[in-house]
């Protein structure tokens, strides 16, 4: 059952990620990407990473993708047109190369022994995942957490300056 759910979610993620490349209009690509993110959130939920799953929905599909869709509609982006005399060498050469690379990684990953990896059979303690992450974030990772807030401040200023009328 567990593996069936995983295979279903990963199939959804891979197909919708591939659909980003197949679609010519960016709005369809964006909607497809949202589906891929939701499928990944399901996989995180299955891995008992509840906090990350919720963050995936709130931050990625909620904030980042809304920004993408907003910009696509603001700029009135059109579908990519096919250029007839262009040689699509990347497609005919790149697809087999990419598949070869994935097969290679698959072989390496499946042949590597997982010794020394202690499998967590149950969630740690009685406290929730979010509570544990909150505790570790404010003790061990307090400095990176504060630096992240400065990064976000810089990003806000940068975004405003970039979108200003006269640069």
């Amino acid at each position, binding site marked *: 059952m567990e593996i069936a759910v995983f295979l279903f979610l990963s199939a959804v993620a891979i197909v919708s*990620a591939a659909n980003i*490349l197949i679609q010519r209009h960016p709005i369809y690509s964006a909607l497809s990407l949202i589906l891929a993110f939701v499928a990944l959130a399901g996989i995180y939920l299955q891995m008992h990473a509840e906090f990350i799953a919720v963050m995936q929905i709130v931050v990625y599909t909620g904030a980042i993708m809304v920004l993408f869709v907003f910009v696509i509609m603001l700029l009135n982006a059109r579908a990519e047109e096919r250029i007839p005399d262009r040689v699509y060498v990347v497609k005919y050469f790149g697809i087999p190369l990419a598949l070869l690379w994935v097969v290679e990684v698959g072989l390496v990953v499946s042949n590597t022994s997982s010794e020394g990896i202690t499998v967590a059979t149950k969630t740690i303690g009685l406290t929730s995942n979010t509570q544990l992450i909150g505790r570790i974030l404010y003790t061990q990772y307090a400095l990176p957490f504060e630096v992240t807030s400065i990064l976000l401040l810089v990003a806000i200023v940068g975004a405003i300056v970039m979108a200003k009328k006269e640069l």
Partner: protein
Amino acid sequence: MIPLSFYLLLSAVLFTIGVFGFLIKRNIITIFMCVEVMLNAVNLSFVAFARYYSLLDGQVFVFFVMAVAAAEAAVGLGIIVALFRNRQTLNIDEINLMKW
């Protein structure tokens, strides 16, 4: 229990799709979306290793990656808006001033 290799393989496939899209797409917004796919593939690896080593550090790093991705999306889309205002195009074949 799902083996760790399944998660890593899914992560590798998603990352490859992202790289491939980055190379073949011509619309700058779609290229940006492919970068997000790559970031998500890495996040999946982080969470998978965090689960299998039963450590929470991986999940904390995913949190930081998400914060950086949000900052990157805000600034990147600001750049795209500024670019469109100056060049009236989103096609990267026409934005080639710096191309040798």
